[in-house]
């Protein structure tokens, strides 16, 4: 069985068990809440739509993490990149709206602008990575933290919309088109699935994808095989940044139409978690992302009803990642060989 499939099974199983434990400990009606968690998404279209809608940016972030991690660049800048892309998209969309551009142009240019902004944020990391990959982890983390502070400051300060009490930027009207009016889902999940397919094809079926994977494993080996190591040392970091940026732009343009302070909500960190669950295989990212989004959405729903606290999900996620990364939970299917 594939490592990623094993991890998804472990994640699903541990999620089911941990959730039950949390329900039993923290809820007065544990089995009712547990059933709500499992059944409600299939009976309430609105919840199902929210889960699918929220999965899309997480998938894109997960793909961004994969492209960076598989190239051996362990960048932790995702959170800051998503947040900066959100701000860039919102500001640009608002500006284009004021300039009376059409909604289509507003949407396309704001998404492109936000995405590129996150890509630009990757440049310092890419430069560091191309000289010394070991430093990427620390530099990217510090950069991400700095970006989060700066964006927070901008939202609360010069870019704040003072017409209401929200600590948020001014809203804009343009929204991503929806796939079908009967099931009002934006095209974001479609974009995420296409990106997954493209990345899966790149890594599994193109020489460049295989070369990049081998470079990520062993840069000296890749150099000795004459692979384009200089390109591999920085391009994946930029692509990772662009994917995080696209995720941020889609979050803003799909439903919110503005950026609220703290809106990235740990998506960059969750993306690292789902990349771990998917064992860096793009094909498994949608499943892993769906699992995390389902947990988040349903906890929000049940906590709104006053059943369990939202902070419980953080503990559950941490425990799932602990199970995933622990060697002792890896199971093997072995054939018994009779003694000769």
């Amino acid at each position, binding site marked *: 069985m594939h490592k990623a499939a094993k991890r998804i099974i472990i994640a699903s199983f541990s999620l089911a068990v941990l959730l039950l434990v949390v329900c039993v400990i923290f809820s007065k009606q544990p089995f009712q809440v547990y059933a709500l968690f499992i059944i409600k998404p299939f009976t309430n279209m609105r919840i199902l739509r929210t889960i699918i809608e929220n999965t899309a940016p997480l998938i894109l972030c997960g793909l961004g993490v994969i492209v960076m991690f598989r190239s051996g660049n362990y960048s932790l800048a995702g959170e800051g990149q998503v947040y900066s892309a959100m701000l860039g998209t919102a500001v640009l969309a608002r500006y284009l709206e004021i300039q009376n551009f059409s909604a289509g142009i507003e949407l396309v240019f704001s998404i492109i602008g936000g995405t590129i902004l996150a890509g630009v944020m990757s440049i310092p990391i890419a430069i560091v990575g191309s000289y010394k990959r070991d430093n990427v982890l620390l530099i990217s983390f510090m950069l991400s933290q700095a970006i989060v502070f700066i964006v927070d400051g901008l939202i609360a300060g010069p870019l704040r919309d003072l017409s209401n009490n929200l600590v948020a930027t001014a809203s804009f009207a343009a929204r991503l088109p929806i796939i079908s009016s009967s099931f009002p889902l934006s095209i974001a999940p479609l974009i995420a699935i296409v990106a997954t397919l493209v990345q899966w094809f790149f890594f599994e079926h*193109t020489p460049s994808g*295989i070369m990049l994977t081998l470079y990520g494993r062993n840069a000296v080996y890749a150099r*000795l095989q004459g*692979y384009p190591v200089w390109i591999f040392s920085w391009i994946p970091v930029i692509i990772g940044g662009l994917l995080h940026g696209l995720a941020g732009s889609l979050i803003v343009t799909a439903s919110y139409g503005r950026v609220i302070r703290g809106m990235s909500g740990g998506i960059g960190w969750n993306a690292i978690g789902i990349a771990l669950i998917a064992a860096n295989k793009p094909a498994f990212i949608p499943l892993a992302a769906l699992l995390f989004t389902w947990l988040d959405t349903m906890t929000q729903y049940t906590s709104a009803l006053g059943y369990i606290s939202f902070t419980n999900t953080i503990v559950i996620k941490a425990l799932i990642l602990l199970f995933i990364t622990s060697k002792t939970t890896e199971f093997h299917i072995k054939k018994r060989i009779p*003694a000769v």
Partner: protein
Amino acid sequence: MKELKLRSICKEFHSTKTKALIDVSCSFYAGSIHALVGENGAGKSTLARILAGVEKPDSGNILIDNKEFIFHNKRQAEKAGIGFVPQYPAVAKNLFVFEQLYLGHEPTRFIFTNRKECIRKSHELISTYGFSVDPLKKIADCSASEIREIEILQALSNNINMLILDEPTTVLEKHECAKLFQIIKNLRDSGKIIVYISHRVSEILELADTITILRNGKMLRNVEAHNIAKIELSKIVAGNIKEEKLQFASCNANANSVINVSHVITKEGGAGSLYDITFEVKENECIAIVGADGNGLESLENILTGFEKPKSGLVTYYGKSISSYTIKELYGNILGYVVSDRETRGLCFHESVLYNCLGKKLNTLDYKQCSKKCRQYAAKLMNDFLISGTLQAPIETLSGGNRQRLLLGRVLTENCRILLFANPFQGLDNSSRNLFCKKLVESYIHRKTIILLTNDIDDLYEIPWSKLFVLYRGMLYPYTGSSNSLSMEMLMTGVLHA
């Protein structure tokens, strides 16, 4: 421990669908050296790893003094008195020797490591067994034979009664081997069981009291060493006997110069540095440079492949400085290179056999039918060079011999104009060595330029050399002797007294 018995040991690796051991039974006795011999993939290392608790058998028993034992890990085997020295050194280079010797069971004072006691015990251990390594030396500064000594001492520091040595001479030179053999004999005389794994017949006959011959995972024969002759053992082990003769080929004096190394001096002073190295390799020439460890062979390998820049001097390929080539030009089209450091530079660990087979082929493929062509290419490579295993299995599941065959096969099938081989036959048995020598000669016929860098005299036989050099203390000497059969000592003295 007086006796250790293995009864009907079976082991299959599911990832590669390889039956590594099939119903192997044998006994090891105190005060004797028991050799396990066989070709690459015979199951020698697997048997050793089972004895050492690194692998678990699928079935069968391990009996120590008629008491059954099951080892789930190496620590349990050590507690039962079994020490294991693997084929390739597994030491932490940033540690001091005394730290490595007691790694994992350091002497303590309360909860803290007692370094003074550790040093004292290390001195005691070294003098007890007659070793010569300095416990206060950094492991990074130790020679290959000193590292072997450290590994043996590390095993002995656990008060073991049985020592398993898996091809301990792979990384050693001849003179270092002699020293190691004396140490092994001393250990045998002190009443320990020694299990010695090798495919080198001469070593086996020099050391062993009892020999167990393995082939394709089965026990072929169990014989007393004094009852078997070298020729007979060679025939049983490899099915053929190697003729040890140096061959020389004439070269075309008018041919174009391909590689030019002029007055190369490396940065560092001391052991391993190069002093004023100058040589030229012409088109379709086949040259060999032989040298013992610590004489600069590693530096020369790094200089010739562009991994290290010389302090002064110049290396040119086809008249152009090596540093002016792009990575793709140099490694992709010009230089086919079998590295001496197979594990960190030559292979991509944790990736599949398939990906490791592809190497430079990936530079020439387009995305259309990439998967299909990759598989076909890898399958052909495995078939042509007798690499056993499955394409999807991780590379680390292959035996050492199979890994080396993959490395050699990959370079020999690449379309590079210059082939550089650094210790290319490490860990290979005689039949594999013969196969690759043949392929190398074919490459030479196909007008490729070949450079061999080796610390093993045996690598020089069966290939017609245009020139032969000896690297000694960082200086290069041309070999002009006429001897057809030689040793490292002969080569060195022959050069130095010329």
